[in-house]
């Protein structure tokens, strides 16, 4: 049984339909990259999975159980954590408080806690008392990832974690992914930066205008096929 499955998932913002029958499956231990152009529905897909955008109950299954349309707070407690696009740290909270709040409602029984996150991102330990928004963009992204890990999620959703960061910083962030996977967390990465995403994923879904246009293992997909799936004709 897949860890997460979407079946014929459709999503709407009011009258606007953003996803059309998206079906995907993710097994425990997978790192799945969701790629696509701006407006392809990648972020909507993650928001629908984590409960911020409504969905039909049977359209999203976690461990075979329907979770579509549940409240975001409940879905988080079932083990799906999200690092939202733009990081969305809490400006009134210090770095350490931002991390702590990620685990206040669900600790899980896993490896991740304050000390292991400081081991993963040592620079955060030095800045633990600083307001979260006083950090550089890359450090803020580390806080956002650490905050999501604090709940020891089964599944981590990463929305555009490289957005607006310098290439050298992006490398640092992505270097943390193997350690996250090692501790048994599966990962979904939404990226516009295809190269970065394909390098870490064992499975790729390409979205175009709300539909899956290509899927498979990165090694099996030709550049041409990806190019066509990404941009269309």
């Amino acid at each position, binding site marked *: 049984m897949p860890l997460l499955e979407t079946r014929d998932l459709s999503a709407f913002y009011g009258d606007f339909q953003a996803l059309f029958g998206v079906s995907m499956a993710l097994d425990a231990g997978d790192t799945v990259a969701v790629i696509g152009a701006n407006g392809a529905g990648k972020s909507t897909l993650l928001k629908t999975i*984590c*409960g911020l955008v409504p969905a039909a109950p049977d359209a999203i299954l976690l461990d075979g159980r329907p979770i579509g349309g549940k409240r975001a707070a409940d879905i988080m407690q079932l083990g799906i954590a999200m690092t939202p696009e733009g990081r969305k740290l809490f400006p009134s909270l210090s770095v350490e408080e931002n991390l*702590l709040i990620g685990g206040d409602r669900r600790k899980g029984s896993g490896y991740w806690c304050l000390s292991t996150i400081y081991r993963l991102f040592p620079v955060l330990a030095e800045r633990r008392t600083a307001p979260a928004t006083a950090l550089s963009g890359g450090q803020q992204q580390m806080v956002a990832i650490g*905050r999501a890990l604090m709940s020891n999620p089964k599944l981590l959703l990463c929305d555009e974690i490289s957005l607006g960061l310098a290439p050298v910083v992006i490398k640092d962030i992505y270097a943390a992914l193997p350690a996250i996977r090692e501790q048994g967390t599966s990962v979904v990465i939404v990226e516009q930066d295809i190269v970065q995403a394909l390098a870490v994923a064992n499975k790729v879904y390409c979205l175009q205008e709300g539909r899956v246009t290509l899927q498979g293992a990165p090694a099996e997909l030709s550049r041409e096929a990806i190019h066509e799936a990404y941009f269309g004709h």
Partner: protein
Amino acid sequence: MMISALDILVQGVLLGGLYGLFAAGLSLIFGVMRLVNLAHGDLIVLAAFAILVLVNWLGLPLPLAFVVAALAMFAVGYALQYLVLNRTIGRDILPPLLLTFGLSIFIQNGLLEAFTADSRRLTAGDFETASIALGGGLAVGLVPLATLLTAVAVIVALNQIFYRTAMGRAFRAVSDDPVTAQLMGIDNRKLFALAMGIAMVVATIAALFLGVRANFDPSIGPARLIFAFEAVIIGGLGSLWGTLAGGIVLGVAQTVGASISPEWQLLAGHLAFLAVLLVKPRGFFPRAVD
């Protein structure tokens, strides 16, 4: 002359403690969920009547009556927020304003129906009139002094909750960004209800001192709300210590006004409020960004 000026100042500061207590709950609610509760003054009066009923009808001693009333008001606040106010909270600030405005009228008339328009008082025995001499002809009443000390204790306690506990972290996170807070597993509806419950406990503390210090009747809620509002605005939105400071500014202004002429008491408070708005439109210690 010196003594009487000092006396006015001291009495004003002590009065400010009461206004700080009125305002603390309002400040808390606005800080956590950006909700302006127009029924706050009436809820304080409701709490005062709750204490009164427990003392007069059930014969409970005042401290016990206060504790029971505080627990009951916590439940009232929790239920009010969870069942009613949460439905109105959203991007539009008007629905919660209209709803709490209606609630204010509902509480006033409900109390009028149940208790008539007679003035009431909570009795605290000798404590009511006891005072401490500070020397040089200066004396402070025990009740006003206890009011101010309680106000300070309430602000300290609320700050401890806000900055030292997981619940306080959640309050601040929801205040910053309610959508992302849900991604932390925080159920905003329950958290808002908890905040309103705590605000109603503070309102009950305010009600205790209101009732022991002065007469109250079902119609005085809106005036307490105005004082509370002015204290919050003078202090700056989002700062609890600022709210107490705002209460003290208001208390001193009113006492100075009253020393000139009794009809100047309320006017002087409002003038001080307007003067602060002119000089510092965002209050003395603003924390909220918007």
